[in-house]
Every structure is written in structure tokens, then in C-alpha cells.
């Protein structure tokens, strides 16, 4: 080999070495130095975080009847960069999903990678579209598993259950207040897709399973709720009030057994509902309670031992000028005992009861009964009500507040106050959540009664209870609230309606009745409130005549539903005819309908 050849050979080798060195450096630069950057870019293109949606928990009543659950649907989405044939895809979407071609075409032409075509598509329709896309070999359309909230009972208990928004977050009612438990926790999975958008399963990355939402059990019994809903509908038909509320509550535990308001709305058609229909009047509406508030004045006077149940107070023969203003009674009463002040609902008597303990003490008792603060029920939007401190009272406030004027309370606060009387003076927080369980039935959280304070002594509560029995008697204001077979205690209320622009609306009343049954061992407290009821004659628009009979019907049906035993004295008065018990063999042959334990001969 001559020198020139050797030189050429060396040059070629050097050139190759140099070239490959450049390639090597470039390779090292790309693979090692720029690794993270390019790996990230590659991951952005191929790796996706797939969300594994958690299912929202169900809402059930006290007997595990379903109140809210989910139905699976699919969301059809598109990746405009994966589309193979825009025109054919638009055509398929238009045919299968009934979405306008122009709208879809505009969306798909945007070039975006995530376009929602249609939400809440039924699985059957989604499957049909999926099949069509596969047959036509069209790419770029994907399906996401989703769920829609369904309320099987429609409008029943609508204000308590509430509803969810577009993103499955609770907006109202228990759906909102128990969001933390109901919502669950979404999981995720990192997946890689090929060019066709199909997942490459072996390349699956990190994965976290979803946790479904917990099931929320309410204290509401749908059987009782149904009774209440029927009666409130009947009342709406009969009296056409502007608003109405009925509450049933267990006094010992504070459990809400039923709660209904009117106007209401269908939870499955919530988009059509007006804001007025969506308000839970039991907790967000303020009213002047009227005479039902007299229980506070009487209880505080008796508890302070200023007076006894039999103490006589002069009721000024129906007209009392105090503080430059006249206070009237609906009838001219002379001397009345504390008991009779409640039975006959004397305004002057109630004013004198409050005056016997003074402004400050009376105010303290009002607050101790829970007025002026939220009850703490697990429902959103509850208001405090309005109880002004004594410093802001006028001279006549002490005569007006005992009869339920100059104060604003919610229906639930009023029911809770009556529950305090029924519960030997203990104020219990009303509650609507019974328990929270996981999908496997394990209890996550369980509600227990919360006794806030002893408002009045058990003896005082017993005395007030005795007086309230008289209200539902021939001599009381609510004879029509009586329930056959049971002795009940209660109080009527008739308050002139407050005008939002000041003063009162003439001829418009908020009538109410709040009571409990059976009087000696209360099983439930019931409250009926009708705002601006229309009666055939104006003089019939009283709590005892309008709300009382509604309470009676609700309580009678509820007592039957709860299988409550009639009052012992009343039971003894009934001629009981024993039915001979057949022997087991005979019993099998007998028709079940013939088995009646108690019969009343007089009705035959």
C-alpha cells in the first residue's frame, strides 16, 4: 500500500469515526440528556389518565326504600385529531343520537381533542352507535361511563332529598348536606393508546380503584310521608293556601318521621321547577307563630315558680290597654287559670304570664327553647329566625311576643319547641339522617339523639302537657284536632300575615296546629301550618278549624300505621268482644280476614 492510499484510508476512517461520533453524541443527547423532556412529550401523546368514576351513593328511607339512586348512561365524546371520516362520523352521530348535523360538524371541526357530543345517552343507544362506528371503521368517537340520578318517588319528599347538578354534586337537601358521604372518590388508571386510539393493555401504568359513595339512610318513614303528602294535597285542594307545611317528629330522639311542603316539584323534572317550588319551607321560611308561642310564656312562668297551673289571672274582660295600645282577646274572659289561658288561648293572659317573669327572663326562655338559632338539622339553608333582644323591645313587646307576634320562627323550630314539652322539658336536636353505610352494609356513621339542654323541669313540662290536653277538648280551641281513641295535647295558632312592606295583611292568616300523641307517652309531634288558607267564611280561618282537622287526620292515620295502642281509659270504655282463638289446625282452615281481635258491637 503506497502512502497516498494509506492517507486516503486514514481520512475515510476518520470521517466515519467522526460521523459515528456525532451520531453517538446525538443519541446520548436524545436518550440521556433530553430523556425526561421527550418521555414527557411521548407520554402526552400516548399516555392518558383514565378516570374510574365512583358511583354516587343511594339515599334510602328508614325502611330502606330507595329514594335516590343512579341509572347508568354514557357520555359520547370525540377526539377531533383521531377522526378518519368527518362526514360519515357526523352522519352516524346524527342518525343514532338525534343531534343536529350542523352542531356536531361545527364541534368536530374545532380540532380539539376532547369534545362532548352528547351526555346521558342510554346504554342501548350507545351500543347501537358503537356497533355502527365499528362496522363503518370510523375512529375518533369514544364512550365514557356515566350515571344519572333518578328519584323513583318523584315529588314525594322532594325538599328533603334535594338534587344534584350537572357534575353530580348535591345542590339541595340531603344531596347537598351529605355530599361528602354520597359523592365517593373517583379512581384513575394511566393507559397508553395506539394510533387508532385503542388501549394497549400491557402498558397500563399506575392504577387506583374508585370508592363508591356511601348510602345515606334517613329517619323519614315513607309510609308516614305518604300519609302526610296525601293530607297536605287534600289541604291544598280544600283551602288553596299559598304555602303549607306538615312535620312529624319523634320527640325523644328528634327524628323527623315525615316532612312535606307545598308548593313542591318533581325531582326528575327539576329543570322545569320554579325557585318558589324548591324552598323547604319547614326550615327556611319564617313566620309569626301566633298562639302556639303561648306554650313558651306559660312554661317559663310555671318553671320560674311565679305561678301555678291553677293560679288565677285577671284577663281584663277581653280588652286591656297597656303601654298606650289595646290588647284584645277573641272573647271576654274574666279570671282564668294558667291552664285555661292555654285552653282558651287568651292573649291578655299570655301577656300577663310573660310579664310575671320579666323581659330578660322571658327572652332567656325563648332562646332556651331554641328560637333564634338554627336547630342543627342536617339540611342546608336553615335560618335562625328572628328573636330580638330585650334591649330593642318596645313597651308593648312583652305583651305581643307571648302571643307569637314580633318574633320570626321556622315551622321546625316550633315543632322542636313542642317536642321539648313532650320530652319532659329536654330540647333534642332534630335530625333527619339515621345512618350512613358502605355498599357492603357496614355502618360508617350512625346518628344518635343529641339532648341540647333541659329547658324546663319535667314537672313543668307535665303541667303544660296537661293544660294542652284541654286545648283539644270541647272547651278548647281545637276540638276538631282530636283523634278517636287517643288523648292528644296541642296548641292552635292563628297569626295575621306579615306584609313584607310593613304591617299586616288584612284578612290573611297563617293558621297552625302543633300537638303530640298519645299525650301521656308521646310517640310523635305533629305540626300543620297553612299560609293564607281560603275558607268559605272568613270567621272559619282559625288554626283550630283549619289546621286542627288536618292534624287529626294525619295523626289518626299515623297512629294506625305505627300500630299505637288507644288510650287505656278509652279502651276500657269499649265493650270488647273476645274472639275465640281457634286451634292451630282450625286456624289453617279459617279465612284470615275473619281474625279480628277487637270488635265494637255498637257499630254492627
Amino acid at each position, binding site marked *: 500500500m503506497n502512502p497516498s492510499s494509506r492517507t486516503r484510508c486514514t481520512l475515510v476512517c476518520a470521517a466515519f469515526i467522526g460521523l459515528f461520533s456525532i451520531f453517538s453524541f446525538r443519541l446520548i443527547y436524545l436518550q440521556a440528556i433530553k430523556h425526561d423532556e421527550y418521555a414527557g412529550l411521548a407520554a402526552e401523546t400516548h399516555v392518558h389518565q383514565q378516570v374510574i368514576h365512583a358511583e354516587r351513593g343511594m339515599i334510602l328511607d328508614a325502611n330502606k326504600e330507595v329514594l335516590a339512586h343512579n341509572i*347508568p348512561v354514557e357520555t359520547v365524546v370525540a377526539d377531533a385529531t383521531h377522526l378518519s371520516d368527518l362526514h360519515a362520523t357526523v352522519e352516524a352521530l346524527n342518525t343514532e343520537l338525534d343531534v343536529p348535523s350542523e352542531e356536531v360538524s361545527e364541534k368536530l371541526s374545532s380540532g380539539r381533542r376532547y369534545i362532548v357530543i352528547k351526555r346521558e345517552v342510554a*346504554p342501548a343507544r350507545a351500543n347501537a352507535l358503537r356497533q355502527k362506528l365499528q362496522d363503518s371503521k370510523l375512529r375518533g368517537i369514544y364512550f365514557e*361511563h356515566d350515571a344519572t340520578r333518578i328519584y*323513583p318517588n318523584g315529588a314525594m319528599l322532594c325538599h328533603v332529598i334535594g338534587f344534584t347538578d350537572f357534575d353530580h354534586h348535591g345542590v339541595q337537601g340531603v344531596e347537598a348536606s351529605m355530599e361528602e358521604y354520597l359523592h365517593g372518590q373517583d379512581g384513575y388508571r394511566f393507559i397508553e393508546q395506539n394510533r387508532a386510539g385503542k388501549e394497549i393493555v400491557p402498558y397500563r401504568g399506575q392504577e387506583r380503584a374508585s370508592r363508591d359513595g356511601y348510602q345515606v339512610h334517613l329517619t323519614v318513614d315513607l*309510609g308516614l310521608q305518604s300519609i302526610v303528602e296525601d293530607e297536605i294535597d287534600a289541604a291544598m285542594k280544600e283551602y288553596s293556601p299559598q304555602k303549607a307545611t306538615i312535620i312529624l317528629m319523634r320527640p325523644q330522639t328528634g327524628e323527623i318521621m315525615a316532612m312535606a311542603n307545598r308548593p313542591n316539584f318533581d325531582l326528575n323534572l327539576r329543570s322545569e321547577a320554579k325557585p318558589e317550588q324548591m324552598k323547604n319551607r319547614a326550615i327556611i321560611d319564617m313566620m309569626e307563630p301566633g298562639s302556639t308561642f303561648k306554650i313558651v310564656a306559660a312554661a317559663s312562668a310555671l318553671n320560674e315558680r311565679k305561678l301555678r297551673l291553677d293560679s288565677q289571672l285577671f284577663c281584663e274582660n277581653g280588652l286591656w290597654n297597656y303601654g298606650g295600645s289595646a290588647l284584645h282577646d277573641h272573647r271576654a274572659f274574666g279570671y282564668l287559670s294558667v291552664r285555661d289561658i292555654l285552653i282558651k288561648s287568651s292573649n291578655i293572659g299570655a301577656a300577663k304570664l310573660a310579664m310575671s317573669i320579666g323581659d330578660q327572663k322571658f327572652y332567656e326562655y325563648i332562646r332556651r327553647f331554641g328560637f333564634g338559632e338554627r336547630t342543627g338539622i342536617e339540611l342546608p339553608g336553615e335560618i335562625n329566625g328572628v328573636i330580638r333582644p330585650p334591649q330593642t323591645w318596645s313597651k308593648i313587646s312583652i305583651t305581643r311576643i307571648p302571643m307569637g307576634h314580633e318574633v320570626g320562627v321556622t315551622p321546625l323550630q316550633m315543632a322542636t319547641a313542642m317536642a321539648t314539652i313532650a320530652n319532659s322539658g329536654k330540647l333534642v336536636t332534630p335530625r333527619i339522617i339515621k345512618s350512613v353505610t358502605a355498599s357492603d352494609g357496614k355502618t360508617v356513621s350512625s346518628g344518635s339523639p343529641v339532648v341540647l339542654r333541659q329547658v324546663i323541669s319535667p314537672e313543668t313540662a307535665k303541667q303544660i302537657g296537661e293544660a294542652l290536653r284541654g286545648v283539644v*277538648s270541647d*272547651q278548647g280551641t281545637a276540638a276538631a284536632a282530636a283523634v278517636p281513641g287517643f288523648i292528644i295535647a296541642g296548641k292552635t295558632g292563628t297569626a295575621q300575615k306579615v306584609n313584607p312592606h310593613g304591617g299586616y295583611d288584612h284578612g290573611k292568616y297563617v293558621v297552625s296546629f302543633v300537638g303530640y300523641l298519645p299525650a301521656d307517652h308521646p310517640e310523635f309531634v305533629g305540626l300543620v301550618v297553612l299560609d293564607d288558607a281560603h275558607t268559605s267564611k272568613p270567621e272559619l280561618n282559625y288554626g283550630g278549624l283549619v289546621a286542627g282537622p288536618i292534624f287529626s287526620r294525619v295523626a289518626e292515620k299515623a297512629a294506625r300505621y305505627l300500630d299505637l295502642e288507644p288510650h287505656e281509659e278509652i279502651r276500657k270504655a269499649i265493650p270488647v268482644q273476645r274472639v275465640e282463638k281457634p286451634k292451630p289446625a282450625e286456624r289453617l282452615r279459617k279465612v284470615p280476614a275473619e281474625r279480628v281481635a277487637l270488635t*265494637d258491637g255498637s257499630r254492627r
Partner: protein
Amino acid sequence: MNRSRRRNCNTVNAASLARWIVMTAFLALAGLAYVYLTLQLYHLGERRKAVENELVKLRTQNDEAAGQIAALTSRTALQRQLKQGYLKMIPVSDSKIVRLTIPARSTDEEAIQPVVNPLPQHESK
């Protein structure tokens, strides 16, 4: 002559050849196994995906059925069916209902009396 021919001929080292053949075969088999297992991995991945899809489908059907059951057995639906006559319920006849009479009244006019609402008028069959 023979001696020089023997010197010029390459002898085949059988052991070495066998070793190479075995190594090559092993590598080839390993390669094939790798390809086969990789394909299996993809295949099983596809099957896993298919099973997952099937599971989702079954769960969806189950949820749909549960939804239908809840809708059909809801109190509102049953009451509606009762009103429309799809459900037949025979009302309890009047003679089978326990009626409570008005309790005996005290002679004292001022005494507090428990009162009883007028009994509702039932249509007796």
C-alpha cells in the same frame, strides 16, 4: 502426499460445532419464546380488556335493572297503579274495622273532656 493433504485440510471440530448449534438454537428458541410471550401478553391484555368490558356491561345491565325495579316498586308508582286499577286491593269492610266509641263523659260540665271527631263515612260493601 497424504501427509501434506492432511496438513492442508481443516478438521471439523464436532464439539465446537455442536456447541454453536446448541447456542444458536437456544438463542433462536429464546427469541421465538420472547416473541410468543410478548404476543401472549398482548393477547391476554386484549382478553382482559374484553372481560373488563363484559363486566362493565353486566354491571350496567344490573344497575339498569335495579333502577327499573326501584321505579316500578316505588310507593308513588304503586299508588299510581292502584289508582289506575292495575293493582287490585279489596278495601277492608266496615265490619272488620275496630271502632272506638266515644268515652263516657263526666257529669261535671267544666271538666276537660277528650273529644272524638265524627267518624268518617265509609262506603260499606
